[in-house]
């Protein structure tokens, strides 16, 4: 048991948790914005893949991680334009469009990756870690927690920003109104289409950033379908987070940690069947839901297209 406190174990748990949790964090933050605004983005994972691929390509050619991350967010955003046009503007079914985006984006990135890098498999340099003075010196957990690539800190800063935007800005209020009762928002003189478009686009950008993080920081390479269901977990985290940014952080990191826990346990020679460990986070969510018997709150108008004057 004393093994459990070793540097290797904790570092695997914490750094691994952050590495695996950050893409979930970005994705579920995006989904949170989107769902708050009434747009159910099932295609989240497709946007992650687009972001992951684009981020990788741009980083590769520009040799700038930041440009790559930005491009990843941009690619997610552009993919989300489909959601905007089809679902927000034309009021078409969000689920079907989301699934279509997910499927098509997976195929698209895979085809491109193979056409371009199928024989060369280029890899990226690591993004350099930024140590936070003093904190990074904390024994054992310091180096894993406070010496991260700067994008991790940016991610957490985004959480704070989002928290503030949702709580104390006009945009936040409009967003929530668009998800709860778009007709009320419209009656109040705010364009539901505009607000929902912004929501859908932000979700795309966040998901793209998450995907870019995965390919640029997480793996240093883009592999087709590398997201492995992260988008769906992101959706679940967003639903469990009930629209609150802070819960989303906790959820993402817990999921990330549970992924890295397998590794950490193996490092100290504790062997649990991987399938069992893999099941744990899901069982845990179920148990929590049962014990607290709580409905994960979803906005009232989630998934419903809004059109003025349609009865």
């Amino acid at each position, binding site marked *: 048991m004393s093994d459990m406190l070793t540097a290797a174990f904790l570092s695997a748990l914490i750094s691994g948790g952050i590495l695996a949790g950050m893409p979930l964090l970005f994705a579920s933050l995006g989904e949170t914005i989107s769902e708050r605004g009434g747009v159910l983005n099932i295609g989240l994972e497709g946007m992650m893949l687009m972001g992951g691929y684009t981020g990788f390509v741009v980083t590769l050619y520009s040799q700038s991680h930041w440009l790559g991350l930005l491009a990843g967010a941009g690619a997610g955003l552009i993919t989300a334009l489909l959601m905007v046009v089809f679902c927000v503007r034309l009021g078409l079914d969000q689920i079907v469009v989301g699934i279509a985006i997910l499927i098509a984006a997976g195929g698209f990135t895979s085809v491109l990756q193979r056409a371009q890098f199928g024989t060369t498999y280029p890899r990226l340099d690591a993004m350099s870690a930024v140590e936070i003075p003093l904190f990074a010196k904390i024994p054992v957990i310091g180096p894993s927690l406070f010496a991260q690539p700067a994008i991790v800190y940016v991610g957490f800063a985004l959480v704070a920003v989002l928290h503030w935007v949702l709580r*104390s*800005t006009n945009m*936040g209020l*409009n967003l929530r109104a668009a998800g*709860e009762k778009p007709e009320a928002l419209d*009656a109040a003189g*705010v364009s539901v289409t505009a607000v929902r478009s912004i929501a859908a686009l932000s979700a795309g950008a966040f998901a793209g950033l998450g995907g870019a993080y995965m390919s640029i920081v997480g793996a240093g390479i883009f592999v087709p379908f590398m997201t492995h269901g992260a988008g769906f977990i992101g959706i679940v985290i967003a639903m469990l987070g009930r629209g609150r940014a802070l819960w989303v952080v906790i959820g993402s990191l817990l999921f990330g940690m549970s992924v890295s826990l397998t590794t950490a346990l193996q490092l100290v020679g504790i062997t649990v069947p991987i399938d069992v460990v893999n099941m744990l986070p899901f069982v845990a969510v179920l148990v929590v839901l049962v014990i607290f018997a709580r409905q994960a709150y979803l906005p*009232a108008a989630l998934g419903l297209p809004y059109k*003025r004057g349609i009865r």
Partner: protein
Amino acid sequence: MTNGTPTHIETMTSDLLQADGVRAGATAGPIGPAVEVREVSKAFPGVVANDRVSLAFHHGEVHCVLGENGAGKSTLMNILSGMYKPDSGAVMVEGREVTIDSPRRAIELGIGTVYQHPTLIPVFTVLENLMLGEGVGVRLDVEGGLRALDRFAKTLGLEVDPHAPASRLALGQQQQIEIIKALWSGSKVLILDEPTSMLTPQGIEELEKVISQLRDEGLAVIFITHKLHEALDLGDTVSILRGGRVVGSWGPDVVKTKSRSEMQALIVGAMFGEGAGSLEDVAEVRDGVTGRARRRGLPNEPVLELVKVSVEALRGEVGVHEVDLTLRRGEILGVAGVDGNGQRELAEVIAGQRSMVGGDIRLCGESIARAGVGRRQSLGLRYVTDDRIGEGTVGTLSVGLNLVLKRIGEEPFWRGGRIREEAIDQAACDLVEGFDIRTPGTETRCGTLSGGNLQKVVLARELSFDPKVVVYNKPTYGLDLKTTLAVRDRIRDLAESAGVAALLISTDLEEILDLSDRIAVLFRGRITGIVDNAPGVERHVGELMLGGDRGD
């Protein structure tokens, strides 16, 4: 001003409207109408909702618009508030022709609207609801919002917790918040689309005060209602829509000079055309409410007994506490009370849709406390819900299926689990005819019917197939005058001729006085008194509604 109205009205209207600009009461406002619609038309698939409508709304004036369900009132208002675009015609604001292509534009033009359907967001606080769309800066200006709310609250004389979720407020308060919201960004025109249909007499009184006050401040108020007396009490100008057209409009000079009964006759005549004579004997149309005499000598056996019935209060509700009631065969027992005092909970616990924490309910002497909704129905207990769209009907199913919705799987409509369409169709046709449901056919999707006809579907379903006891929850809310009267007649008929006992829950005191034999008053989930219905009882009932001493 020319349209296809009967000539006697046409002359009248043109007379009146030529007197533009010399309006009494319009002291502060600029000359000319605040808003005017000219020859506005709007059609929906299959209906012409507005047909060359021309009306002017003046500053410092309350303009009442009346008309049957589906006459096109809301459509016209929605055109003014930017929700609908007119197919043709012009809208003028302060004399200038404008295009109101969005609610935003309407707000900019100073038109504030309280829509027929509530636009408050239940999970938002009062303040959040009010500040929605204010959107000048990035940050929510909470302090500024609080100050503004304070100002409105003072002028309108209301007390409200700005941080309470809207869902927590009583309907009357919600209505007031809607009004503040409509005025929030400095409106000069206020549209109120049926604001009183869910309010209690007290609430209506308060609302009327507010409206007068706003009118005196120079606002143009457009007030839509189905209640004649409200129009007579408040209206400076009264206009009638029928089938999408203006069929009557009388300015202050007429309204102020004619007697109440003369006005009433004019309005009823315009609203319902020639056959309106039959409405004359109705309480609403008669001057003042007198209440019907209590039918004495109902020594009939009790059919429904509530013994210390209690219901747990869910979030934002009051629950029901130890309610005792006895309902006899053929009796109509009115349940009066300000909305949100446990009416819905009471109705639902009787219908079996909500579980009881204590007490007993007996139907014809046998306890039904453990029976489910379906069992109670088959025993003859019926519930006419007040939420006809939300739970009373299934909009995507046909009218026919909605009429047998509570008998799914039962003979003769189903046999061995398989549908027998002819049987359903037969029964549905009979009901459609018997209840005068206006529908293209029994196959029509129920959701396309207008509110009044939906209500008839609900009534037809509940009142057929041998009912013994019916719980009515606000059976006439939102219905136009004629339909209202028809529904009331039906309730009375059933009680008198078929002995069907009725528990009549209504927030409309007048309705209760009109129909009930006895009146129970519900306050904060308790019965504060049960009184016999007799002339002059309304004062006592009013006191009880505000929690006065337990009567009896």
